[in-house]
C-alpha cells in the first residue's frame, strides 16, 4: 500500500501495535453497551444507505459493465451492513432482528453521514460519491483491524478485501471521467464541487464514537484525515480535477439530522415492511 506520510503508514498498518483485547466486563456497563451500539449504527448505516442508493441504479447504469459493477458494490454494502446489524441485534439481546434495525427505524434514528444519501444525479455524481466513500472506507477498515473488539476485527478483515476492489473501480472511473472529454470533465468537476462539502463529516465524531475510541474499540479516524485528503488529492491530480474552495462543510447525519433526500430513501426502502409488517421472502 502506498502512503504519503510515515504517520499514516503506521496508523493503518496491520502489525504496528499489539492488539489490546477488550475487558470482558466492558459490556456489562449499560452505558458502554449503548455507546457501542450507537457507534456501530454510525458505521453500518453508511453501508445501508449507500447500498440502497446504488441499488436504485440496477438496470440504469450507463452501460452494462458499470451497471453490473455498481450493483455488485451495492450487494457488498448490504453484506457488510447485515454483519454489523446482526452484531447489534446480538448486543441488544432482545427480540430485535437485523431486519428491524434496517427497516423499522425513523429517520432521526439513522446515523449515516450526509454524503451517502446524496442522489444519483448523474454517473459523475455516483462515481464521485463512491470514490469519497471508498477511500475513507478502506482506510477505516484497515484501522479497524486493530480494534479491541474481536467481532469488529473479523468484520474488518473480511470487508477490506472488497473495499479495495471498490476503491479501484471508483478511482479508475474518476480518472477516466476527469481526464476524458470536455463534457465528462465539466460534469464530474461539478459533482466534486457539490459533494466536497460532505467529506469532512466522515471524520466527525459523536459522543459514542469518542467513548469507543477511548476504549480502543474504534479507530481514531481524525488521525487519518490528512492522509485521506492526500490520497484524494493525489488522484485528483492524475484525473486533472480541482479541489474546490469551500468555506464550511456540512454535517449532521451522524447525529440523525439528515438532508431532504433521506425521507425519500427510507420511504422507498421501508414501505414494504411498513405496509405488510413481518413479511418475509
Amino acid at each position: 500500500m502506498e502512503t504519503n506520510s510515515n504517520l499514516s503508514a503506521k496508523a493503518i498498518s496491520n502489525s504496528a501495535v499489539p492488539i489490546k483485547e477488550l475487558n470482558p466486563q466492558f459490556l456489562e456497563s449499560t452505558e458502554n453497551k449503548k455507546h457501542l451500539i450507537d457507534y456501530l449504527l454510525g458505521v453500518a448505516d453508511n453501508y445501508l444507505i449507500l447500498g440502497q442508493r446504488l441499488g436504485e441504479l440496477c438496470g440504469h447504469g450507463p452501460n452494462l459493465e458499470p451497471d453490473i459493477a455498481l450493483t455488485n458494490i451495492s450487494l457488498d454494502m448490504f453484506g457488510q451492513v447485515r454483519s454489523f446489524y446482526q452484531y447489534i441485534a446480538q448486543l441488544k439481546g432482545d427480540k430485535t432482528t437485523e431486519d428491524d434495525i434496517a427497516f423499522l427505524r425513523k429517520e432521526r434514528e439513522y446515523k449515516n453521514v450526509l454524503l451517502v444519501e446524496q442522489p444519483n444525479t448523474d454517473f459523475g455524481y455516483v462515481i464521485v460519491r463512491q470514490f469519497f466513500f471508498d477511500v475513507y472506507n478502506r482506510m477505516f477498515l484497515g484501522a479497524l483491524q486493530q480494534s479491541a473488539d474481536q467481532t469488529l476485527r473479523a468484520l474488518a478483515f473480511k470487508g477490506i478485501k472488497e473495499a479495495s476492489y471498490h476503491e479501484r473501480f471508483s478511482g479508475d472511473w474518476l480518472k477516466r471521467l476527469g481526464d476524458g472529454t470536455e463534457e465528462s470533465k465539466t460534469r464530474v468537476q461539478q459533482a466534486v464541487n457539490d459533494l466536497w462539502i460532505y467529506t469532512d463529516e466522515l471524520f466527525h465524531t459523536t459522543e459514542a464514537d469518542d467513548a469507543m475510541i477511548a476504549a480502543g474499540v474504534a479507530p481514531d479516524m481524525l488521525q487519518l484525515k490528512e492522509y485521506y485528503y492526500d490520497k484524494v488529492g493525489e488522484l485528483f491530480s492524475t484525473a486533472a480535477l480541482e479541489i474546490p474552495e469551500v468555506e464550511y462543510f456540512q454535517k449532521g447525519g451522524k447525529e440523525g439530522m439528515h438532508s431532504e433526500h433521506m425521507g425519500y430513501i427510507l420511504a422507498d426502502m421501508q414501505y414494504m415492511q411498513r405496509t405488510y409488517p413481518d413479511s418475509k421472502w
Partner: protein
Amino acid sequence: MVNNSGSNSSSDSSSSRMAEKIFGSLPESILAILEEVADPEIPVLNVVDLGVIREVIVEGKEITIKLTPTYSGCPAMDVIGDDLERAFAAHGYTTNVQLIMSPPWTTDWITERGRKALEEYGIAAPLEETADKDVLLNDKKLVKCTNCGSQNTKLVSQFGSTACKAMFQCEDCLEPFDYFKCLK
C-alpha cells in the same frame, strides 16, 4: 491430490492441508452428503471444493456446520445454508448451520479439483495474488482463455455476473469468459 498446474502449487498444498484438517476425521457418508451441495451460482463447484466449510461436528444425528461466506454480500450463502439443511434432512440428520467471519475466506481454499471444475465450466480459476493484481490493475495478460488456452486476453470489467468474478475476453478466439478473482 495431484497438482496439475505448477504455478499454483502453494494454493494447492494449503487447500489440501486444510481439507485434511476439516474433513480428515469425518465419516465418508457425511462427506458425500456435503459434496452433494453445490454453489447455486456455479453448479459445478460443490461446497467442499469451494472451501467454505470450516468445521463439521457430528453428534449422532445432529450436525453442526460452520460456514464462511465468500463475499459478505454473496446471496448464495443463504441458499447454501438451506441446501445443506435439506441435503442432510434427506438422510435423516438435523443441521445447525453457523456463519463464521474469521478467518476470512480466500480463493486459496478452492481445492485443486474445484479449480479444474471451474476451468472446464468456462470460468478461469484465480491466479495467485501478485499475478491477479497485475492482471486487474496493470493490464498484464496472464489469464488463460478457457476456450482456446491463449493468454492474449483482456479485462473487460472488474465486476462480473456475481461478486466473485471479473469479465474477460480472449483477443485470439474472441470468446468472452469469466475469471474468478483472487481474494486474499
